[in-house]
């Protein structure tokens, strides 16, 4: 009786535990290799962003970092929500320090337990920008992050 119970427990643990671990891979950034990110860090184009999260349509959104160089701008975002698979913003806009509004060319996002991440890539971005504002507004709700781009990038 006890041996059979142990066998059931181990089987359940392996199956359910295995599925859970598989679902958690994205949360703990295991096997997430972003070659674009590591290359940008080597070239010195990566700017780490340390900001407070903002609430937008039930999402706690935050900007993690920005890659800016060679005419391209990539904004990395993440949303967090404990005990849930958080939603990720559908679109964002970027306004430069000279008032120019940019539209993104490509975007990518993936959701997971507790944390969802993604990025938006803008092309034909003007050079020597001092700062950008990442923002989105709809029906009275908005998010806005001011990101300085001078003073060199962080590794």
């Amino acid at each position, binding site marked *: 009786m006890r041996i059979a119970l142990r066998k059931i427990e181990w089987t359940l643990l392996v199956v359910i535990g295995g599925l859970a671990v598989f679902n958690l891979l994205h949360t703990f950034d295991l096997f997430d290799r972003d070659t674009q990110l590591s290359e940008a860090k080597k070239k010195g184009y990566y700017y780490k962003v340390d900001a407070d999260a903002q609430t937008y349509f039930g999402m706690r959104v935050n900007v993690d970092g920005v890659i800016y160089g060679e005419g391209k701008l990539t904004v990395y975002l993440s949303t967090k929500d404990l005990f849930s698979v958080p939603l990720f913003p*559908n679109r964002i806009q970027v306004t430069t320090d000279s008032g120019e509004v940019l539209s993104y060319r490509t975007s990518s996002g993936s959701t997971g337990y507790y944390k969802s991440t993604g990025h938006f890539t803008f092309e034909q971005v003007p050079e020597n920008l001092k700062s950008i504002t990442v923002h989105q507004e709809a*029906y009275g709700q908005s998010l806005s992050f001011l990101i300085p781009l001078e003073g060199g990038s962080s590794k």
Partner: protein
Amino acid sequence: MNLKIVAGHAIRWLLIMAASCTLFVTLFSSSSLRIDQTVRKALNMFEVPFAPITERIKTGQGYELLQIVDKEHGLYHHLFVKKTLGLFWSYRGGGGGRPLDEHTVLEFLWGYSTFGKYRHYYAAGPVNDARIAKLKIMWWDGHEQEADINNGTYIAARSYRIPKEEPEGTSHNHLYAYDVNGVLLYELSDDNRAIKKEG
């Protein structure tokens, strides 16, 4: 009883519970026990504000079509939901963010979502003529139904079992608007989808 054996059982069950909770969250994150919470999550996903359900229509196979009219922001949405495991309402499809255009007298917008072997059709749009007392929809296969009119919009839904061989030819659906005396006011179809206000 041997403490080590009991501890072994306890730890294993604790881990099984924790893993089950994680799986439960990933599977049921967009679902909820209460239907308006499911609506809230779906509308957040569309990035539109929350508004209460205007109308619920059962379309069959456990699915329901929800119509949400947001007069304050001039939008309307339709969502398909289903009660999974007999407890949780889950969002299964639909569209949102359609504008409530007050310059449109009547518009015939229809579509469908496929769930398994059934297509769930909906017809919805703005209604801005006080004379219209009855709206009838004639589907391509001869099925007729009356639409519910409220809050400046109408809604009708049905499900259709997809046959093994789809009949050839295009599908034409029609919308007929009648006044209180049964006089035909407007007829809309795929070729003539909307009637706008003059001036």
